[in-house]
């Protein structure tokens, strides 16, 4: 069982940039955001460039990277193409924000950002749902990444509002959104973990090429490194599932005008959700362990 760190980075940075721009779009449609929009759009572009770099690093032949767009019906190609579209949209957003009188994001730009963000999350998921025979071939994978993008987006925007000292920050909205998105991520991961094995398909997409559903894969029975990989999954689950919504709630408390009682309640909910997400990811990896031990 080997972890593909470029693939992991690609997915994480990809959903982060998609979530950031998408959340910005939602806030723009609600007339919120102010000066945060410019910095957030720039951050979204930087995250996108990071995802592109990770996508290139994943290849065995980096010198042939442009060949990747030759076969757009392949989910792999779609995953690369959406990053190019995203980068262009982010540049358009930055220019539009810069030209705005209040340096805020226009509503039309907000619509564009939401659409591009959903498209990007779908494209990244297309890497996993590409025509293949492993666990990724399910809409659950797409839904899972969209939920993860939402969670990441709310998280990033909360940080940006805090860093920009912007008192117009819709703290309850961001905290609630993050909590719901994290809950969705955890629930989808649980469903994915419980349903996927019964369909005879393997779990965990961050691991390359380690399934043996037809019993003759060369890695069948090789589980010596599983313990280390489980640790990675646990750490990811703790960071994403547990800390993210909790940190958002704590950040929200520091923003002036935010209702403390409501934020405290959200904080409790966030921790409960995080525990659920952690347990589901544990089941996720546990199922993977069972299948690998077969």
């Amino acid at each position, binding site marked *: 069982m080997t972890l*593909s760190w470029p693939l992991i980075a690609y997915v994480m940075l990809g959903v982060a940039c998609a979530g950031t721009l998408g959340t910005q779009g939602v806030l723009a449609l609600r007339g919120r955001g102010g000066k945060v929009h410019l910095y957030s759009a720039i951050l979204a572009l930087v995250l996108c460039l990071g995802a592109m770099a990770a996508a290139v690093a*994943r*290849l*065995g*032949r980096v010198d*042939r*990277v442009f*060949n*990747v*767009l*030759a*076969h757009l*019906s*392949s*989910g*792999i*190609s779609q995953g*690369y193409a959406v990053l190019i579209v995203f980068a262009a949209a982010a540049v358009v957003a930055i220019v539009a924000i810069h030209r705005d009188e209040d340096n805020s994001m226009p509503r039309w730009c907000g619509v564009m950002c939401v659409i591009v963000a959903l498209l990007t999350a779908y494209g990244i998921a297309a890497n996993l749902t*590409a*025509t*293949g*025979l*492993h666990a990724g071939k399910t809409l659950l994978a797409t839904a899972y990444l969209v939920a993860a993008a939402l969670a990441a987006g709310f998280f990033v925007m909360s940080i940006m509002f805090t860093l920009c000292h912007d008192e117009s920050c819709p703290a309850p909205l961001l905290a609630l959104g993050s909590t719901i998105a994290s809950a969705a991520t955890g629930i989808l991961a649980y469903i994915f973990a419980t349903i996927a094995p019964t369909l005879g398909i393997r779990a965990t997409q961050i691991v*390359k*090429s380690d399934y*043996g*559903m*037809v*019993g*003759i*894969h*060369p*890695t069948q029975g090789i589980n010596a490194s599983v313990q280390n990989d489980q640790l990675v999954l646990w750490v990811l689950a703790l960071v994403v599932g547990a800390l993210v919504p909790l940190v958002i709630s704590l950040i929200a408390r520091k923003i002036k005008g935010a209702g403390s009682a409501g934020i405290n309640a959200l904080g409790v909910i966030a921790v409960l959700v995080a525990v659920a997400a952690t347990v589901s990811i544990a089941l996720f990896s546990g199922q993977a362990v069972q299948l690998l031990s077969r």
Partner: protein
Amino acid sequence: MQKAIFTDLNRCVGCLSCSVACKALNEVQIGNFWNRVVRVGPNPEYEGADYPDVYMYFLPVTCQHCENAPCVAVCPTGASMKTEDGTVQIDHEQCIGCGACLDACPYGVRYINIDTNVAEKCTFCSQNIKDDGVPQCVSQCSGNARWVGDLDEGYDSFVGTYDTDGDYGGERRRMMDFIEPFTEEDVHTLPDIGNGPSFRYILRGHKWYGAEGGVEGATMAM
């Protein structure tokens, strides 16, 4: 046209000649195989059976050159392609080494060459085929268990090793004239998950387990 290989598992003795011949001809890297032989069993002859009512068979596994190859569909560059003769080939000049085809293949027959960083697998010995030859695993099969032909033309098109005894006029032996009779119930494929593996395996008189529980290598000394 759909080129394919029949393997008569009642004849295969697990000598690994096919595996070695393939590796030698195609200069496959150490640690990788284009044709690996898996030992399946010993399995019970019937429910609850124990020794001596058990049996095993040797299963040569290679690229199945599937009719709906998932490796072709998932390839982002089109390097993996289905050719006119039905075989699946890789254009090494187009391959970017992303490894998606490794994930997509249900039989795990692909790998990334660590020197060239591109995907590799069985080529159906295209270099032999173009000269009217046969894959090396067929010509070197010591048990006359491997036969190559065109599924679209039927079983009569399948041929194997050269006749050196003069029984077939010096031509290649024909499968339907040489091997023991079989029925359609004796003909199997590796698990089909919509990919349509082309290769066929003949197993008479025993339950087909596919590759379930298969162990790499055919020697009992493992």
